[in-house]
Structures are given as structure tokens and as C-alpha cells.
């Protein structure tokens, strides 16, 4: 079963839920302990200072009515496929096979970008991943890079409406692993700045 699969109920004990310091106002859930068991409904219960809260899984939260998938539902589906492919790549001990899974993720980025109205954090992460792959010119991701891309996309799937600030933090994490996340032609644009031209 993939990491992003449904049908898993997790009991998570937390020291307390805290509201994140961002405009999304979502709750941070720290998965300090989990004992997965198969059930029919995706549900997480959280104990916090004696009270038990029910946390709704992301797929349940954005459950789409039949025949009318919303933007976010479609985006979540695509993110799930991407996360599954990355998980397969992580599991594979054959570098070529792993890279083939990663290539599928790369090909999904334009489709994901079409759902950027989900939020600027979403848009900025997908866009940066696209430029990161472009700048690699086909070179496969290193293990470290694969792990960070996988983690960032899983986080994005769990919280698709990330703010721009949160998105940029994830982009900085990609950059820290040596991924070059900027368009290669931005530097050329700056050459057009009158001051730059005069200074040459």
C-alpha cells in the first residue's frame, strides 16, 4: 500500500494542537505515534489534553460528488499519483527504474500547474519543481533530492492550500538539496536593466 493510500485509521497522541503561524490557520498535527489498522473509513482521532478530536483525512475533506470533481480534488488525485510514483522510486534499488518513476512525476507537473488556483504556495512549489527538473537536463535526482521532493509533495498533498510563505519555505528546502529552482533565463532579463547595461 502506498503511503498516501486510504483506508487507514491512525490514532495519534499529541501534546496539544497548535494553530500554525500562517494565514491558512490550519492545525499542525505531529505524528509522534501511530498504529495503523485497516478500516473502511479514513479517519484519524487525536487525543489532546484529555479531549479526543476527529481529524478528517484530506481526501475525505475534499470528497467530490460523482461527476463533478473540483479543482482541488483533481489536484489531490494528481498529487497522490505523483507521491505514489516517488514512493516507488524511493523503494527501487534499480536507478533506471527509479528514474522512470520520477519522470512520470515530471510529466505530471504541467497538469498540476493547471490547478495553481488552489493557492500560491501550491503554484510556487510545482513551478519550482518544474524548473528544478529543467535545470537537471535529464540527470536523475540524487537520493537526497528524491527524498526531499517526495516529502515536499506529500506535505503539499496533506495541505494543498499552503500560503506563498509556506511554499517558499519548501522551495528553500529543495534548494538546500542542490536543486536549482529558478528559470535559467531570468538572469538574461536582468541584463536589460538600464543600470546593468551601463555598468558593463
Amino acid at each position, binding site marked *: 500500500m502506498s503511503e498516501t493510500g486510504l483506508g487507514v485509521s491512525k490514532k495519534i497522541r499529541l501534546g496539544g494542537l497548535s494553530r500554525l503561524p500562517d494565514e491558512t490557520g490550519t492545525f499542525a498535527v505531529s505524528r509522534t505515534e501511530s498504529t495503523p489498522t485497516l478500516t473502511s473509513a479514513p479517519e484519524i482521532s487525536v487525543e489532546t489534553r484529555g479531549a479526543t478530536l476527529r481529524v478528517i483525512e484530506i481526501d475525505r475533506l475534499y470528497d467530490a460528488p460523482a461527476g463533478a470533481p473540483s479543482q482541488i480534488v483533481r489536484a489531490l488525485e494528481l498529487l497522490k499519483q505523483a507521491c505514489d510514483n516517488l514512493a516507488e522510486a524511493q523503494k527501487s534499488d534499480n536507478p533506471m527504474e527509479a528514474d522512470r518513476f520520477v519522470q512520470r512525476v515530471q510529466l505530471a507537473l504541467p497538469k498540476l500547474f493547471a490547478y495553481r488556483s488552489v493557492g*500560491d504556495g501550491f503554484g510556487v512549489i510545482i513551478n519550482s519543481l518544474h524548473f528544478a527538473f529543467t535545470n537537471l537536463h535529464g540527470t536523475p535526482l540524487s537520493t537526497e533530492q528524491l527524498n526531499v521532493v517526495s516529502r515536499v509533495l506529500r506535505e503539499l498533498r496533506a495541505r494543498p492550500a499552503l500560503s506563498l510563505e509556506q511554499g517558499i519555505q519548501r522551495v*528553500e528546502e529543495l534548494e538546500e538539496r542542490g536543486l*536549482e529552482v529558478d*528559470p*535559467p*533565463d*531570468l538572469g538574461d532579463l536582468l541584463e*536589460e536593466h*538600464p543600470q546593468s547595461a551601463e*555598468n558593463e
Partner: protein
Amino acid sequence: MSDAYVETTVLTDILLKPKTPKQERAKAALTRYENTLLPVYSIKEWKAGPLNYFAYLHDKLVQTQSLRDTFQALSALRRGSYRQATSIEALTAASTVSKGQAKTYVGLGNSDQEMADSYRLALESLIIRSWRKRRKITTRVVDELPCYTEVEPRVGKDGLLDLTPQQCERDQECCLAPQLRSKPNLLEALRNAIPEDSGRREDQKRRKALKQLIKHPKEIVDRETCRNLGDAIFAFFCPRNAVILTTNLRDHGPLATSIGKKAEKP
């Protein structure tokens, strides 16, 4: 081994020209020196100049929602200036080329609007990340400017970038004024290094600002004078055991030499 006093152009190459030979050269140059010093004046000039230019591009993309229109707008801005055949015009042309020709842009999306959004997001990300890196690229940040507040660029509710403040505080004398006044002989030498008959507005403003400091030392040095001093500030404040690291040797070279200092290219 001397230290490097990092000037605005090198800061720009490192922070805003990803994946270019200029960035590689600038980064490599920093490793040649034991200490690399970034004056806050460089940060101030960088924010008000190149970073502001990128913010303008970003805002134009927000407004036009078109990569093509944005480049056309930039071309129009430059039309009539000293350089007619700009690469922006070339890029504009490239964005309208017929099928079969090489595509210039590597942004996401198939339509002009999607490409515009891809570059808008890329610019937003680069502007904010580069701001956060600015104080990390050298071994030290020096010559702090108490009259200038460094505020991170932010995206407003209208989607436009806000880069204020770009100047020092208005109702305050330039914090560099006492040090500048204390060495009139250096100011004189710097002024003499600028050709009197230079037709460049930048040179004229710099000569005027230096003259004001020399002839009227008791007058308040305001933020305009500080800004007009520009390159002269680097020559004046560069430590004796350091070289000014700049891609603009044409302007910095004579100024530095006039007071026994040196400017080097990355």
C-alpha cells in the same frame, strides 16, 4: 591576502542571475578572499535597483497576465534609449515566432497566460529567497546604515510586490555624513576622479554631491545626496586592506585609484 568589499553588481550577479556564467564567476571570486565584506549600502542599492526591476517585471506580469505583453511593455520603456536592439526585443520576437523555431522560454504552460503565471511565481520566489540570502553570501556584513531599514519584500492583497522602503528615512541626516565630512581631502580626490565634462547624469550628480560635501560641510546630508554619491561611497569606505569587488571597473576603478585603493573584477 586582501579582503573583498562586495559592491552591488557582484551581489546582483550572485543573487539574481541563477545558472549564469556571471553568477559562477562572482561566487568563485568570493572564495579567493579570506574575508568578504558586504556593506549595507550594497544591499540598499541592490533593492532599489535590480531587485526593484524584477519586482516591476513581476507586477507587469500580474497586470497583463501575458508574457508577450510584458516584454512588449519593457521594450516600449527602453525605446529611444541608448540601446535600440535589446535582447528583450529579441525575446519578444522569440515569443511570437512561428512553429518550428526554437522556443526561448522554459516556463510551465502552453498558453501565454500560463507562461506569464509561471514566471510571475518564479519571480516572486526568487525575489523573496534572494532577499533572505543577502546577508549570508559573504563572511561579514559591514557598515550598517542606522538610517536605512531593511524590510523583506512582500506580496500585497492585490498581488503586486511591495519593496518599500527603498531609501533611507526622510527626516534624518545620512548616518554616513560625519565620516564623510571628516576626510575632505578624500572627497576632493574622488571628485577630481570624475571627468568634469562627463555627459553621464550619474557622474554629474556624483560630482555635485561631492562638491556640496566639500564646500558646505555644515549642510545636512540628505538621502538624495547619499544616493547620488553612489560609487564614491564604496571607494571612500572600502577598508585599506580590501579591494572593491565589482563588475563595473569603468566607474569604480578611477574612484578607487584616486585615493590609493583598488577595484577588481570577479
